[in-house]
């Protein structure tokens, strides 16, 4: 299949060793594609140099959309389309709208952020998972390096040596 990529995989059996390895490999100037761990490793995202997530910014805009939709829709119905006298209150009774507008804001931002999260993680129902190494779901840690056509065999051997020096228990290439 054409959409598979080739990776160089280094397997580690300790999270501290992994953290050190990430630090040193990145320090030596090699680009790490990703790290796979069976549990969240504290500080790993910092060592990998990942950008802080912008999901909450998206959440703000989803929330603002929800607020606008709820406010304009309730106002349209209550004030213009079908004005109903409820206990002598004004047709545009902003105070009474606020609880619903608030709930709508929360609903929009929650659903919007969930959907964006799945989109960003490239997850959707029925997706076939690409698993680098099944043992990373249990007790081992993996670092991957993408191997495209520009990477020479010298590069591969350099990174393999470095990984072994840093304490990797296994190094192999895999296409997923």
């Amino acid at each position: 299949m054409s959409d598979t990529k080739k990776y160089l995989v280094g397997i580690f059996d300790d999270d501290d060793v992994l953290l050190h390895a990430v630090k040193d490999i990145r320090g030596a100037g090699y680009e790490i594609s990703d790290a796979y761990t069976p549990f969240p490793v504290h500080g790993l995202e910092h060592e990998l140099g990942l950008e802080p997530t912008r999901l909450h910014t998206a959440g703000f805009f989803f929330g603002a959309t929800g607020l606008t939709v709820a406010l304009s829709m309730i106002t349209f119905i209550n004030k213009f389309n079908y004005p109903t006298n409820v206990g002598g209150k004004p047709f545009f009774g902003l105070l009474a709208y606020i609880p619903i507008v608030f709930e709508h804001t929360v609903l929009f931002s929650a659903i919007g952020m969930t959907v964006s999260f799945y989109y960003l993680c490239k997850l959707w129902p029925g997706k076939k998972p690409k698993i680098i190494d099944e043992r990373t779901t249990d007790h081992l840690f993996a670092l991957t390096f993408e191997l495209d056509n520009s990477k020479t065999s010298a590069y591969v051997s350099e990174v393999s040596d470095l990984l072994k020096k840093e304490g990797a228990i296994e190094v192999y290439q895999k296409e997923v």
Partner: protein
Amino acid sequence: MNTYVFDSGTQKKLFITFGIGLLLLFLGVFFFNDGSASAEMHGAAHEAVSKVQEHASANTTEAHAAPTHEEKHATVGLAVIANIYNAFYFGFYIALAAMFFLAATTIAWGGWQIQIQKIPLAMAMNIILFLGLLLVMFIFFRHDIFEWTHEYLYDPKDPRFDKILADKHDFLNMGTFWTFFVIIAGISITLVAYWWSTLTTLDEQPSMKLFSKSRAIAAITIVITAFVINTFATWLWSMSIQPHWYSTMYTWNTMAGAVVTMLSLLILLIFFLKSKGYLPNVNENHEHDVAKLMFAISVFWTYTWFAQYMLIWYANIPEETQFFRVRRTMDNYGFLFHFTFFCNFILPFFILMKRGSKRNKTAVIVAATIIIFGQFSWFFLMNCPALLPKGGFGLISIGSLLMIISVFIFVTLKMLSRVKDLASTTHPYVKESYQFKI
């Protein structure tokens, strides 16, 4: 540098702040305006009413004449009493919120606050002082502050007889009032003395047993603060200033406001102590957590504030709406009413929303100052308008705020200087506080 020294420079600054507050109070009394200038328009209507009544009874015209010198004198006195009483009540509630903070963080297995927990402890010691000050107010000025203390309201033969208050007399009477004062004072002083002795003993003889015992007392503190001290203190000392009115959200709202004020004061004191070189291991992570709580509880305050307002607006029962009629619709308080909402919700919400600004010292100091001022204004709006229907928020109020805050900080720093181990370096959980990172 683990014992705070209350140096004379700081004391001097606090005395100067107190002096400025006193000066503002005197200026406020001097320039006191009971609203007669702004009420010129109402004057005409007033005269018309008195003319009608003149026909009815010649004797009543005397009472409706322009305010005499003595009347004005009495209004100034009432303004000072109301503002001072409000400030004492505010101070008591901040101290109570400090004790609540200690209990809540202890029961929640909190580790991050260990290094700073001596500050709320010292703040909580203010409970004793402010209970004393409130007692003085209750003994000497209870008839000025509380309308329901007058006996003639309950005498059916008297023309001033009040049916509603007579129905409430089973609860609103001096017997209940003093009983609950003794209960509240006794319990809160016992609890605060207990917290003081436990946390100072933990400095000298750290033990898990004592710590576990303090968690049990923390649970008791929370329950008693919520259901005894807070509930009855707001009912009897604040809500009964307008005895015909009642609200079930009032107690929540008061406590939420007190907690957010206390957190603002706490973070200002943390910055102050750090600028003097104390608390070396408190970093922006701890400050971030306090700022997060400030943000969260100011939103919670808004929730209770809005719920109270919306329910009363929607139900539209005259006996409930009078509270907001005085505060929102009338000229004297209308601006302040919206201003408090702005200060307590909109500004802190947008200032503290981003993670970066919660870790930014300037932004947090600005938000904390706004919150303290805004919450004081809201406490003023809860307590004073019923007593001062004509007068508004002015120099007297700002003066009393400055005075009470300087007294509060003076006592807090005085108590902090008696603590031997400012950063609680021997507490069982202190390591968690050192490594705290968010």
